[in-house]
């Protein structure tokens, strides 16, 4: 294990700290999800509002945070492991949604299951797209769109912290318009 050099405050190897950040975020996200499940009274119509609520808000939050980290903020090392992989990952849940769908189907409420599934997907995808748009400052034309960092400035550790290191993280085609408009420095 390489020790920290030049009086760095980091006394532990970076990957270990990243796992701790993920665990801490996951703990808090799980606790928050449990809190929402306890706080939301089960609907008389049987719609699982608690799972729906955490999944939609978590999708918005993860898109907001990851887009900010990758495209807009100065390099950060532990924001993504803690907030995105840890908190949002632990806050949202796929398995509960699946089991709820199957149970609705088994109780002869196939229609309710179809509504629940469709609502989760449509609103979840829209929330993720909204999170990205918010992070890019696209919702208020001319406002909030500060300088984008040079892609070379992005901490490679942070940029590869997600599960698809080979995924293109460069500007999307939409960004070409921004470049032409001269919003970049």
């Amino acid at each position: 294990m390489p020790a920290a050099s030049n009086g760095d405050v980091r006394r532990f190897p970076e990957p270990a700290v990243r796992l701790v950040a993920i665990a801490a975020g996951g703990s808090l996200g799980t606790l928050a999800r449990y809190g929402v499940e306890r706080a939301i009274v089960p609907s008389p119509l049987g719609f699982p509002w608690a799972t729906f609520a955490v999944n939609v808000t978590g999708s918005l939050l993860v898109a907001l945070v990851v887009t900010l980290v990758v495209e807009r903020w100065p390099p950060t090392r532990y924001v993504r492991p803690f907030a995105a992989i840890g908190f949002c990952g632990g806050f949202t849940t796929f398995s509960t949604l699946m089991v709820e769908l199957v149970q609705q189907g088994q109780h002869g409420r196939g229609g309710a299951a179809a509504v629940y599934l469709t609502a989760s997907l449509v609103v979840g995808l829209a929330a993720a797209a909204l999170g990205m748009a918010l992070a890019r400052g696209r919702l208020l034309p001319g406002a909030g769109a500060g300088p984008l960092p040079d892609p070379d400035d992005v901490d490679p550790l942070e940029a590869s912290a997600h599960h698809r290191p080979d995924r293109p993280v460069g500007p999307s085609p939409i960004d070409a318009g921004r470049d032409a408009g001269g919003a970049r420095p």
Partner: protein
Amino acid sequence: MIIGGLMMAGGAGAVLRYLIDHLVQRMTGSDVPVGIMVVNLTGSLVLGFLTGSALHHGVSPLWLTVIGTGLIGSYTTFSSFMFDTVGLAEHDQWAWSVANLVANLVLGVGAAALGLALGSLT
């Protein structure tokens, strides 16, 4: 007691997801988020099994909360699934985006149903 158990299980679930996701992505070398799919499908199978066992054979509510809500709930993730699906579409990989959506859902429902059936039997 339950809060401490939930927090430990939730932290462990998130770390487990990260490690398995990375392992699978490295093994497949894929552009498509197969790692999160593997995580979500295995988690749905296990949560189905736990839920089936609890319904038919009685599992202590504490156990179900800590392992089901805490560990498996945190292990699987909906937010990455949504973000990756939108990300693929944004990079004009529409076919992969739709495939990711459909595969997760169809196989996820199948895995949960299988888990529930197995949990009811044993």
